[in-house]
């Protein structure tokens, strides 16, 4: 059985997980440490303990506004990228000859975002005038699209082609088939893609930097600006709050919906 793993390998696996955790989490430990440091600088190990930076971040209108804007934007991008990208991936997975289309959908990954940002700004200005939330939304969706497509395609490659056929013989129209058969099948891929989309948008600095206007200041841009001129641990505090929020959200979702049960099927 899969459970029949040699003991030494089991230990090795645990060692490996611990090392990976170290690699993945070490910088975060620094960030968390810095965020509670009394020092004005980003130094580690932290000197003293203070929650001033949290107070400062939460008290700053810019941070709070930027946070909500980013959240709204990332939420919308997640939806649009997942819907559009998921649909494209499903259509692609059914095609026999799909290589060129597939590479085409990958192209936003290969062009540095600054080029896209400037091009987008030029085009938008010449066509619609000043940039708006919609411009940012479109741009982020474009960048997030390939992630959804890749992850979904990968999962669909392993799926049982008979399932959809079976649904067809049971009279399922294309929409119902999509909803009841195809989507459950690509759920792990879509979930990963959606998560990437959210994260890409939430963490995207370059496009946001160029497409913004006074009312359109996202969190990464805010952090970026802060760091450029006067780096202080506020950014660390903001990041730490993000970390805590993420963990809380995942655990909550798990308690409420049983993520695992869902992920298991």
């Amino acid at each position, binding site marked *: 059985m899969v459970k029949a793993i040699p003991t030494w390998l089991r230990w090795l696996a645990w060692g490996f997980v611990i090392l990976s955790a170290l690699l993945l989490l070490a910088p975060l430990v620094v960030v968390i440490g810095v965020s509670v440091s009394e020092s*004005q600088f*980003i130094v580690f190990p932290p000197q003293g303990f203070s929650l001033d930076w949290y107070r400062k971040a939460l008290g700053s209108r810019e941070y709070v506004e930027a946070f909500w804007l980013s959240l709204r934007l990332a939420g919308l991008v997640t939806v649009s990228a997942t819907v559009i990208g998921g649909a494209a991936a499903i259509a692609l997975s059914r095609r026999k000859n799909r290589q060129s289309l597939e590479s085409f959908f990958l192209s936003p990954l290969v062009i540095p975002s600054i080029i896209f940002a*400037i091009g987008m700004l*030029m085009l938008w200005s010449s066509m619609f005038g000043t940039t708006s939330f919609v411009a940012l939304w479109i741009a982020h969706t474009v960048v997030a699209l390939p992630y959804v497509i890749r992850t979904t395609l990968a999962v669909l490659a392993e799926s049982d082609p008979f399932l959809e056929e079976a649904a067809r013989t049971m009279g399922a129209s294309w929409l119902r088939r999509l909803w009841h058969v195809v989507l459950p099948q690509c759920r792990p891929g879509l979930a990963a893609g959606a998560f990437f989309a959210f994260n890409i948008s939430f963490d995207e600095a370059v496009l946001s930097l160029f497409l913004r206007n*006074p009312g359109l200041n996202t969190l990464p*841009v805010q952090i970026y*600006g*802060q760091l450029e001129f*006067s780096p202080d641990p506020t950014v660390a505090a903001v990041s730490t709050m993000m970390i805590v929020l993420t963990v809380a959200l995942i655990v909550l979702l798990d308690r409420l919906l049983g993520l695992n049960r869902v992920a298991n099927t």
Partner: protein
Amino acid sequence: QEITINSFGGAYEEAHRACVIDPFEAATGAKVNIVTAYSADAFAQIRAQKDAPQFDVIHFSGGQEIVGASEGLLQPIDPELVPNLADVYDFAKTGIANGEGPAYQIAAVGLVYAADKMPEAPTKWADLLNPEYSDRLVLTDISNGYGMIGMLMLNQISGGTLENIQPGLDAVAKLLEQGAIVVSKSPEIQQEFAQNDAWIAPYASDYAYTLQAAGLDVKFVQGEEGTPASFITANLVAGRDNVELASKFIDMELSPEAQACFSEALRYTPTNAKTVLADDVAASVVYGPDATAGLMRFDPVAIEANRSAWVEAWGKTIAR
């Protein structure tokens, strides 16, 4: 009514707000929208947005106004609308005729050093070449405006000119060999001083003050060989329709009160001759007609003409 401007973020933006924006809004009842954008990003933005600019007033610290003016992105300032312009030192408004905006602040570039660590305080640019300091020396990439000035200064003391920066590059190469490091962003300088035992760096007075304000024991000195300056200019963007209000904003930035306020907050050198500074502030900035006259400015036109080539040459020099 409202206007849109860019500011540089962090402490600068706070000062900007306190010294200019808030009073301006109070005085005119207009609203000022701020976009936090560094000069380089801001320039790229207005260039790309040529068809529909969103900024009314744009501030540059790296000489971008020269390119901007030549590309017609900027609009010449009407002195009538900016009365305070008359009181500004001449050298700070040389480009007005070309369409460039006036400098409303000057950052002096000199030597920033860790007072508690340096064996003895540096006094001149040549101290940077001291091999003993080399592995504690922080240079700044010339993609950064202050970095460019620092390099040109090194070039000058090594015998180079604006026509020939090779001596400067050679000096840099030697320093790097001896262990100096190059950073490309301001926060990294702080990082180096705060965490990594850096001792000395050629950089600007304003940033030295930021470091001090944050609690680091650093000092700023002007090098004996001269103090090159970086000008922060305020420019009108072409293609916007409330020029009058925007001009009024620039006027406010040039006012003695605003300039004094800025100096107080961030230790910039004022450009309005009528500015009066408190003594403690005056002591730590280059202040007064004589002192300011001693500031030097590398010919911005020459810099712009050569920037691309220099950046490339610099890149090749420092490349590992």
